[in-house]
């Protein structure tokens, strides 16, 4: 069942000569883990903003086409209504944490929507568990590491029990350890709890390892859409656009790999692949 349906969606920022998104059509099923990648300026963030209601409510612009969440168009919904359907996590871990205490931060969104304290308590302990940070509950948000801050932000988004978890470059300001922490949590949420994850990300290494489907945007258009191995098999095209290919995949591509079994996406898969290659 499609949870998100985008039909012929085109968007132009006010005063911009060219549209930032051109005729995008796609559908995401419940429980998918979708990675959205592309070079800088391809329209990834714009697409994310269209999904969580920042566009057109917060930033203006001119949109045609449809975006449907759970069968309903999102354009006549307020951001507060959309916030219950799409949980958003942004790039800057510092700017999206509003309170000085983790517990209060988790309660913020629920307070805004007017939940009863008993329900808040239930959801807060639940999402702390989901994000793997029950030990951070009573910590101050100021002393947290970048990875911890982003996991708090994920927990905050989950507290609204959204249909989709949407992340816009959640790891761009994190070190490799923090990046891995965030993707581990996303993977677990997706696999064990069936949460639909949409993540905009330039780090293709992580996408290849964790996402079940990858979308590539270039100059506002959706140019590729498929399983990671299908996308990363088109290495020449990706290089022309300026999308980084995971190192192991690149190596295998040079060695002549081109299908699901001969195109490793992680170091572990590459180890098996090379072992087989050496033996044969």
């Amino acid at each position, binding site marked *: 069942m499609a949870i998100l349906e985008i039909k012929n969606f085109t968007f132009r920022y006010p005063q911009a000569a060219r549209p930032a998104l051109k005729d995008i059509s796609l559908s995401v099923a419940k429980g998918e883990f979708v990675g959205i990648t592309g070079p800088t300026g391809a329209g990834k963030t714009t697409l994310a903003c269209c999904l969580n209601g920042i566009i057109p409510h*917060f930033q203006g612009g001119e949109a045609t086409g449809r975006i449907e969440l759970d069968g309903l168009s999102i354009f006549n919904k307020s951001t507060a209504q959309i916030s219950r359907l799409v949980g958003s996590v942004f790039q800057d871990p510092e700017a999206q944490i*509003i309170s*000085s205490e983790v517990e209060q931060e988790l309660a913020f969104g629920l307070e805004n929507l*007017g939940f009863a*304290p008993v329900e808040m308590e239930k959801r807060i302990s639940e999402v702390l568990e989901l994000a793997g940070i029950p030990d951070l509950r009573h910590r101050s948000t100021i002393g947290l590491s970048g990875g911890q801050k982003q996991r708090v932000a994920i927990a905050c988004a989950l507290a609204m029990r959204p249909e989709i978890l949407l992340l816009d470059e959640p790891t761009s300001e994190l070190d490799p350890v923090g990046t891995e922490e965030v993707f581990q949590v996303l993977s677990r949420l997706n696999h064990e709890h069936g949460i639909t994850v949409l993540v905009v990300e330039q780090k293709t290494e992580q996408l290849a390892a964790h996402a079940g489907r990858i979308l590539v945007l270039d100059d506002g258009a959706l140019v590729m859409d498929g399983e990671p191995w299908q996308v990363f098999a088109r290495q020449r095209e990706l290089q022309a656009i300026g999308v980084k290919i995971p190192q192991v995949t690149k190596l295998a591509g040079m060695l002549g790999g081109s299908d699901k079994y001969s195109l490793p996406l992680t170091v572990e898969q590459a180890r098996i692949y090379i072992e087989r290659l050496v033996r044969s």
Partner: protein
Amino acid sequence: MAAAVEYIQKDSPVHRLNAATKIFWALFTLACGLLFNDYRYLLGLLASVLLVAAAGRVLKNLLPAITGLSVFALILLLIQALFYDQGQVIFHLIPQTSYLPVTNYGILSGVAMAARMLSLVLSFLVLLATTRIQDMVLTMVEKFKMPYDYAFMFMTTLRFIPTFLGEVRQITDAQKARGHAVEGFNPFKKIRSYAPVTVPLVLISLNKAENMAMAMETRGYGGGRRTYFKEPKMRGADYLLTAVLLLLLVLGVTARVKGLGVM
């Protein structure tokens, strides 16, 4: 001294009290401090404030502040003793002359002034040390009907101070690494040399503010009626203490009207 004004997380009877009760207590102390000018009353008031600090287990944390304030208290005492010439002369500051007489009333009114200053400032320090800012702000919203937007603004400002201090450090380092020097004794030059730090800081702040607004937007801020996760509740002890303080205040005013506690 700066550290003394922060909230100190501890479990004590004073910490458990409602913020409203503690705010009322600080205002009560302020009222009593202004009502009386007898040194005995004011010393008693100071002792009561210290007792509350001890009950809140923050006396030790406030010690640096108390030491700092004592210096001012001493200066107050000296000034008062020097320039108050009523009462019996005990001695002259310049011996064998009649210049700068120090009188018994002068010393006592100096003690009163010092005790008053100490109790007023300390009561607010105890309030700040034992009450979370959030609780205080929530009390403002709940009890004094301050709009939540203002309360939110205030809390967010406090939240972002460390973030911006970190930004300042980073920008300063970056500019230093590129050979920019903040130096010289000429104040105008010094101000101008801060521009390479200030301009990026303002731009970064604007950017952060916009990002924060987006994050708030996607979490339903301003979406209608708000609830509160931890509404500070007034409990038995709070009602009792408020009643006792109110009674004491009435007694104090009556005493003052009858001429007690005035030198």
